[in-house]
């Protein structure tokens, strides 16, 4: 039986690295991980928030605002990853993309 008090992921390996944090409700920030606790509350330095499209609060623009040294609440965090580990791709869930993927699988098998 696994210990329930242990975290699945050790955030220690991201300390002093720039990470991207996404929140429930659509907010996104970027900052240098300086600390954390077992409830996934997080301290970020040089933090910036990505401003969202006013018409679609789940879509982020390139505009940012500077926040500085912040604490992010673990209860609201939905996602945390190294900032340089992300790139935008074309939507893989459109009907055309799904059909193409199924065709590729059929060809391979």
């Amino acid at each position, binding site marked *: 039986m696994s210990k329930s008090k242990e*975290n699945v992921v*050790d*955030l*220690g390996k991201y*300390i002093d690295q720039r990470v991207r944090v996404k*929140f*429930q*409700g659509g*907010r996104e*920030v970027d900052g240098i*991980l*300086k*600390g*954390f*606790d*077992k409830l996934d*509350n*997080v*301290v970020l330095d040089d*933090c910036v*928030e990505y*401003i969202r499209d*006013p018409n679609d609060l789940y879509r982020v623009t390139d505009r940012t*605002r*500077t*926040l*500085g*040294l*912040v*604490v*992010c*609440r*673990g*209860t*609201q965090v939905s996602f945390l990853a190294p900032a340089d580990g992300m790139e935008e791709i074309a939507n893989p869930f459109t009907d055309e993309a799904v059909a193409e993927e199924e065709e590729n699988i059929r060809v391979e098998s």
Partner: protein
Amino acid sequence: MAGRLQPLELVDKCIGSRIWIVMKSEKELVGTLRGFDEYVNMVLDDVTEIEFVGGVRRETQMDQILLNGAHVCILVPGGDPTAVGP
């Protein structure tokens, strides 16, 4: 197991100073932090509540509040949202 700077330690250091709270929704508060609990419910003095409703920024002043921590997203110790544009 926790990393160098504990988040709740940083919040504790902020007691007595100004803090800027960003909620999950389009609402922010700036006030003097008097205290908080393990759920990060907070007591704040001299509060300015800032709401962004339909592109319009609206501010409300309040003397002392108990802020429910359930939807608190980001805490910025000593932060000043008037210096930063939305």
